[in-house]
């Protein structure tokens, strides 16, 4: 069939939208790291800024923290995800657990982190529940639980969010690997559930979740907002320190921040390489293990409850944490160790009304704009593919997910400052698009390709041209995944902290920057208000995405989820 020329260009528009900002941002970081940024007064190439960065006394500890928390959070999340799937795939409780965890994708990292912080803090529900009977505390103990120097709270905050993400990615991969039958064959050969799964399904699933795992690793090593809420402070992780340098009033510190960002990038790349080597080593060991004949039937006894416990804890932590945010936001007087406030009050909310309204509106507008553009681009790329214009370069969608934000967003912020583009909603929206597009595309691609092409063929044979097939048949039939992709994109935009902070330059704020800005304050009621809004906004859109198709197609059984 003839294809109009223009379609072959379509994927490249999206690739440009994704890749150019990342590359420009990296240039905007590497050049000033070596002293070159004429607009900020850096005209000579020098290593002075590197010396300043490398002589910061906290550097070794900051690097160690970034690496340890990032690797530990990723390894723990991956191990728990694999364990949950291996131990429970194919059971009814597994279906139930995956359905319960799916909405957590829409939950911003910061809201989950605040929830966890509220739960485990010395004055949190855990301490209250155990006091004074078990602990003897009649006042909040003077313990550094949140922001602990080891980064344990930070690791926990990351695991809580990354397990649901990896779980959903694994589920998508399982559909393409004939996993249930494979596992059945292994069990028929006398293997235990977990051992059989690890030996036969994992080697086929892992290559498909490798990029999401790398994204989790890069993210965990360089995250800023979660680290501000849960991470250590003296010194903080490297990413937090870079942000600190970046936002000092003295613009000269931006050179030092740039050097730090380059260091952070090198760190992430280095750890990714090590991770890859570890994959190879484990694969080699695994091949021998698989051939060893060890059935591991007994292992199920311990591992299945362990996996269930892990999933349960994550669910409970998130649910209690979010409930805690809401309770704090309505709390009046709340004595320790009472489980509930003595008095309730709307004052925390009414006091914020003046800024809640406009900021929530801006947050929603930015998210709607970025997501709408991302939807249009994703649909064009997929439609171009369906019309025979497929390019492997589309794998570049993972670029903004794997390149650490802290390594290239400061560069973009410098350009935006020089060009006078910072502080505008449009600029913030444009940068959000870079992170929204990959998630929208990845969320839509599988259902798009899984669509029964015979419906399109039937429509064409009935005389419908390609556009009518798209508008009247394919898009309506994909209403559900399209709305889910929209909700995922919206949630991604709402959750953006660093891009909003650096490009918004204090003049554009969202519920996320407001909430995270309160992290260092001790005002739990105020944090509760903003974190609750930050959590509610994407959840609301997600709920709509699930309810709307049910409502629109209430008289169409064929459009129900199967």
């Amino acid at each position, binding site marked *: *069939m*003839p294809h109009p020329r223009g379609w072959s260009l379509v994927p490249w528009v999206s690739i440009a939208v994704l890749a150019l900002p990342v590359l420009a941002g990296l240039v905007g970081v590497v050049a000033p790291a070596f002293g070159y940024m004429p607009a900020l007064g850096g005209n000579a190439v020098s290593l002075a800024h590197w010396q300043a960065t490398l002589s910061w006394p906290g550097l070794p500890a900051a690097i160690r923290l970034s690496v340890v928390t990032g690797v530990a959070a990723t390894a723990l999340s991956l191990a728990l995800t694999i364990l949950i799937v291996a131990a429970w795939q194919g059971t009814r409780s597994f279906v139930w657990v995956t359905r319960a965890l799916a909405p957590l994708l829409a939950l911003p990292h910061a809201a989950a982190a605040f929830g966890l912080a509220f739960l485990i803090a010395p004055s949190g529900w855990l301490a209250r529940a155990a006091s004074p009977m078990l602990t003897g505390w009649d006042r909040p103990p003077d313990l550094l639980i949140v922001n602990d120097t080891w980064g344990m709270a930070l690791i926990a905050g990351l695991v809580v969010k990354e397990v649901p993400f990896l779980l959903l990615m694994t589920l998508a991969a399982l559909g393409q690997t004939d996993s249930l039958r494979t596992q059945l064959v292994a069990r028929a050969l006398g293997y235990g559930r977990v051992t059989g799964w690890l030996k036969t399904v994992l080697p086929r699933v892992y290559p498909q979740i490798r990029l999401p795992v790398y994204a989790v690793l890069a993210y965990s090593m360089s995250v800023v907002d979660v680290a501000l809420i849960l991470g250590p402070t003296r010194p903080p992780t490297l990413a937090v320190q870079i942000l600190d340098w970046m936002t000092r009033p003295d613009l000269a510190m931006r050179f030092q921040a740039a050097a730090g960002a380059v260091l952070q990038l090198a760190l992430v790349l280095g750890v990714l390489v090590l991770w890859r080597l570890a994959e190879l080593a484990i694969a080699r060991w695994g091949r021998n293990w698989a051939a060893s004949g060890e059935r591991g039937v007994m292992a199920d006894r311990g591992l299945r409850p362990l996996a269930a416990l892990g999933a349960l804890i994550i669910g409970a932590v998130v649910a209690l944490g979010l409930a805690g945010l809401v309770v704090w936001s309505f709390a009046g007087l709340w004595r320790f160790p009472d489980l509930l406030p003595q008095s309730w009050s709307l004052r925390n909310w009414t006091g914020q009304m003046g800024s809640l309204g406009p900021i929530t509106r801006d947050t929603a507008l930015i998210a709607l704009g970025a997501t709408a553009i991302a939807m249009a681009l994703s649909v064009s790329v997929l439609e171009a593919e369906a019309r*025979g214009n497929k390019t492997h370069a589309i794998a570049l969608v993972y670029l903004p997910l794997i390149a650490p934000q802290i390594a290239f967003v400061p560069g973009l912020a410098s350009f935006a400052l020089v060009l006078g583009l910072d502080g505008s909603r449009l600029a913030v929206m444009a940068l959000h698009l870079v992170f929204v597009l990959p998630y929208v595309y990845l969320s839509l691609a599988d259902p798009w390709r899984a669509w*029964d092409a*015979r*419906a399109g*063929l*039937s*429509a*064409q*044979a*009935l*005389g*419908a*041209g*390609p556009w*009518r*097939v798209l508008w*009247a*048949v394919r898009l*309506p*039939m994909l*209403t559900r995944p399209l709305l889910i992709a929209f909700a995922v994109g919206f949630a991604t935009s709402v959750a953006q902290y660093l891009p909003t902070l650096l490009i918004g330059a204090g003049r554009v704020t969202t519920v996320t920057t407001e909430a995270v800005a309160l992290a260092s304050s001790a005002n739990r009621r105020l944090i509760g208000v903003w974190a609750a809004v930050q959590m509610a906004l994407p959840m609301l859109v997600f709920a709509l995405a699930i309810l709307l198709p049910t409502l629109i*197609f209430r*008289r*169409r*059984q*064929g*459009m129900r989820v199967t």
Partner: protein
Amino acid sequence: MTLRLENLCITLAGRVLAKLDLTVSGGNVLTIMGPSGCGKSTVLAALIGALPPAFSMRGRIWLDGVDVTQVPTHARRMGILFQNDILFPHMSVAGNLGFGLPGNVTARRAATDAALSEAGLPGMGARDPATLSGGQRARVALMRTLLSGPRALLLDEPFSSLDSNMRASMRQFVFERATERNLPVILVTHDHDDARAAAGPVINVMGERIQL
């Protein structure tokens, strides 16, 4: 109306899958028989202009004296029914019928109502296609195809998903409609009863006659 396949030859990686040179005149049914996987459905895909890229095709397809070999599927006016009815799940029964009706037809309601009556489903236009029985859905799918004004009808095992007592009446329904409209029909099947009911010549994908 006439459908003519002129020296049609379909190959996959150099291997010949099908070789056909024949003419089907209006109101007649040609049956192509063979086991599953022999390439029957590929022949129909080629006839509607939707041959997967891995295959290649030589020869010409003539419809009413017009060479449609290069005409895109949607402009070819080659009606097709698949094994499953493929009614669009997001549209009502009338919506599905209206989708088939060409845009320049003005009396749309009358046309879909007439089609519903002909299918034995009067007044059921507002129904959700998912609530119809298999036989009813199959009849709607046929009427939808006929409303699009095809100049030939291709049947890709359209009766195999129906249960046996429904199959005979559906066959009769389809062949009667095709004869009334003087459509040339190509039926692809692996079912001997289908082939007998078609009452026309029976060949395999290489164009060789088959005795039932």
